[in-house]
């Protein structure tokens, strides 16, 4: 069966410090990978998605970047955190079925980031 892991689960960082959140998926190959941010009252916002190693698409301009160094590893980074980067970050994976969107994303447990 497939599993998705995110770490760290919680993080408190000062403004201006760097960030690295990791996500790994087990039990599937060549998944689509996603980073979403959940801020209070704003729902889930897609930040980045990736269809393969080294292939990253950014959905919104921001202070963050993403990388996919291995097939089942997705990393969210920042060189200098802002207060507005605080939130609940969710990694997700999916597989298309015969090229069709299924609407099914499998989310990790999330990483709660507080920037002070």
């Amino acid at each position, binding site marked *: 069966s497939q599993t998705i892991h995110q770490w760290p689960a919680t993080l408190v960082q000062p403004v201006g410090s760097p960030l690295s959140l990791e996500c790994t998926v087990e039990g599937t190959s060549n998944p689509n990978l996603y980073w979403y941010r959940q801020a209070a009252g704003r729902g889930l*916002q897609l930040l980045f998605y990736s269809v393969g190693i080294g292939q990253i698409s950014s959905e919104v301009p921001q202070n963050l970047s993403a990388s996919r160094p291995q097939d089942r590893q997705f990393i969210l980074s920042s060189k200098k955190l802002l207060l507005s980067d605080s939130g609940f970050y969710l990694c997700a994976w999916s597989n298309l079925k015969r090229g069709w969107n299924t*609407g099914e994303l499998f989310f990790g*447990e999330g990483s709660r980031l507080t920037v002070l």
Partner: protein
Amino acid sequence: QQQVKQSPQSLIVQKGGIPIINCAYENTAFDYFPWYQQFPGKGPALLIAIRPDVSEKKEGRFTISFNKSAKQFSLHIMDSQPGDSATYFCAAPYYGNNRLAFGKGNQVVVIP
């Protein structure tokens, strides 16, 4: 892009009641429209999804009703239980690669 709006923002019902959550989207899409359920401190999990060529889908106590012409769909929770207390997100697809635009979420509280 795709815009998704949910209503009402929050809902409190008695056990056994039928909370109904509504979702409206802007851009026509031909792929699945899902509802996700999220408990506090956890990631969202897919609850039920519907194709736009189907008007209704039931899975257990959860039903999606889809109105393609109005670009709206809703979630009905039959015989609601306290364990259904959660935040519910609807989503609409845009472009490809299972990219989803999510609504802001509806908090549902079921009182015993």
